[in-house]
């Protein structure tokens, strides 16, 4: 027998050969398939008619005394004895499988809390609840926790959140800190109250930078080239660019955004990576020496074996963000959710949650409770949990987009820097 070519096996059995060489796609059928595809598009078009449409229409929330969220409306709401609380995972005090603060709430008010840790990102959670709200249906949740930003703004703009009855939130009025009262994205806290907040400033390793960091300019220092971390969230990225130019993000204009984008582009070749949340690993490992950072991450890193990492509020300013409690429209048990909001704003309760979560506490007076009753000076005395007046003076809020076009413009300006 002669040698065979590499592609042809020795003939053993025709069936075997057929099986071995059978094509997966054959030539001419590609055309047929294309035709079928066009047909299917017609079907798809029909489905579109009953599928996802536009989000433009604001929700009808009734008028006068029937208007949802009005004092009269709230007067009619009764506590049902239970409510659905959607939050981010591991964002509340946890001890032996239970949540002590929620249990205390149940004991004090008789309301059971169905606590679900179903939120992983703002964008995907919004993508999940928006279609229901658009369709005039409830989301299945009575309380959600969302970060300030476009998605929360959308919920507010579309009137998909129930305005709060502040007469039932005396604890908020009494104990909430100035940082979280009447934020620019929700004046007078009409729809939201803060759950936790945080700073986005600069985190760095002084052993590797060789010096103290004081300014946003330091993120542009060529000496750190290749070891600079920036955030891949374009709101954070754009805002730090604005800060560097000395512009207050809340009052910035589109021209300002372009200027910020330019200096960010200049920085690009020095940036090691645009991180989502993993910048903290890079800082811990020493791959990155200086990075945009969240205050809570640095606090935790300090606790966890990296005491040398530092968080600094640059003199140009620090960005302040908040995760907010809100009650979505068509919630089944709004009165119960509202009761929890009020309960949370007691220093004792906020302290218990804070001792666990370690971001910025919305109740400054919780500090002494943590120091004394909970005997946790690390948390109580940390400026990352209870910022000083000097720090809060430098806190800036993010720009609140008025409509989709503005949001789109911002994205169009800053996304290309991150994703090229």
């Amino acid at each position: 027998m002669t040698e065979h070519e590499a592609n042809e096996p020795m003939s053993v059995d025709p069936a075997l050969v057929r099986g071995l060489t059978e094509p997966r796609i054959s030539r001419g059928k590609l055309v047929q398939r294309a035709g079928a595809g066009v047909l299917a598009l017609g079907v798809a078009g029909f489905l579109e008619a009953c599928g996802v449409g536009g989000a433009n229409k604001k929700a009808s929330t009734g008028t006068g005394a029937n208007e949802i969220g009005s004092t009269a409306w709230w007067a009619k709401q009764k506590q049902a004895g239970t409510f659905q609380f959607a939050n981010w995972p591991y964002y509340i005090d946890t001890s032996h499988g239970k949540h002590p603060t929620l249990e205390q709430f149940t004991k004090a008010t008789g309301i059971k809390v169905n606590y679900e840790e179903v939120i992983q990102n703002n964008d995907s959670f919004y993508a999940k609840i928006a279609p229901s709200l658009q369709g005039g249906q409830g989301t299945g949740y009575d309380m959600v926790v969302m970060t300030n930003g476009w998605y929360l703004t959308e919920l507010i703009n579309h009137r998909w959140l129930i305005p709060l009855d502040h007469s039932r939130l005396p604890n908020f009025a009494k104990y909430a800190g100035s940082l979280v009262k009447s934020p620019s994205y929700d004046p007078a806290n009409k729809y939201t109250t803060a759950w936790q907040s945080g700073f986005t400033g600069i985190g760095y390793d002084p052993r590797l930078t060789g010096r103290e960091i004081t300014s946003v300019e330091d993120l542009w220092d060529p000496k750190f080239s290749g070891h600079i971390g920036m955030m891949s969230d374009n709101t954070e990225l754009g805002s730090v660019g604005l800060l560097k130019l000395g512009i207050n993000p809340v009052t910035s204009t589109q021209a300002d955004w372009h200027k910020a984008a330019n200096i960010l582009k200049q920085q690009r070749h020095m940036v090691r990576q645009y991180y989502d949340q993993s910048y903290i690993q890079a800082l811990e490992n020493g791959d990155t020496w200086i990075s945009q950072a969240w205050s809570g991450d640095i606090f935790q890193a300090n606790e966890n074996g990296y005491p040398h990492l530092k968080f600094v509020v640059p003199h140009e300013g620090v960005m302040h963000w908040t995760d907010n409690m809100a009650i979505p429209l068509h919630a089944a048990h709004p009165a119960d959710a509202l009761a929890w909001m009020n309960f949370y704003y007691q220093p004792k309760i906020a302290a218990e949650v804070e001792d666990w979560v370690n971001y910025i506490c919305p109740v400054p007076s919780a500090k002494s409770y943590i120091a004394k009753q909970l005997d946790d000076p690390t948390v109580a005395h940390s400026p990352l949990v209870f910022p000083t007046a000097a720090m809060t003076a430098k806190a800036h809020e993010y720009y609140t987009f008025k409509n989709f076009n503005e949001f789109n413009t911002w994205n169009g300006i800053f996304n290309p820097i991150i994703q090229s």
Partner: protein
Amino acid sequence: MTAVAGMLERRPLEAKASRVRPARFLLPAYVWLVIAYTVVPIAVMVAYSFNQTPSGKTTFAWQGFTTTWYAQVFAISDLTSALEHSFEIATGSTIISLLLGVPLALALARYRWRGGVVADSVIFIDIAAPSVVVGASLLSFFITLNIARGLGTILIAHVAFNVAFVTVVVRARALGLDPAIEKAASDLGASPWTAFRTVTLPLLLPGIISGGLLAFAMSIDDFIITQFVAGPKLTFPLWIYGAVKTGIPPQVFVMGTMIFFGGVLIAIANTILQRRTQL
């Protein structure tokens, strides 16, 4: 038929390989090296599951040895139930995908049919479609039909992509099977179902096991599609991803370790069982 006889007989190649002594060491050594390489990140996870963590959240700075987390592994009830859900869905979707995919694989391998070309392309598109789009499209679908999101919708979504993977793997196996064997069985009086059960199925078994393992791994680890179609009940990856913002608890590493060693135990048990049946 020589081909038939050849198919039914599998004699290992050891006899011929005695010529190539160095290669005999090289190859197994390579295999174990690669297995070790795949295990490296797992080893890190196992090591740090014993790490003390002052703040209750995982860290890669070594703080001291402790077994506390193993004692408290189920302390976070939401995490534990997320893990349970992941297993339930992975098992369910694997079984259903096999039930759907094996017949399709046979149909694609054995026959030439017009529908086969369409099925082929659908399978490819299923694998090629980006997870984001599959997830979002299914979510729109469920909302339009007013189907409440929960473990059921996650199961449906997982089967939707697992079927394609199972089909591809099983078909690679089925392509080599000679249909004449089944004909021989029916010539000897077996009904089509008996022929399938006693002849084809055992021959397909390596493909079925491989496809099943793959489907299980994909399902238990899926994140993007699950994120879209999940309801109040979470899966393991979903919980972990959401916790990254505030810090992952050490129980996550402990659970990962338990999953891994649970699998090792199953592998060992499998080995022992097989040795028994051979005797």
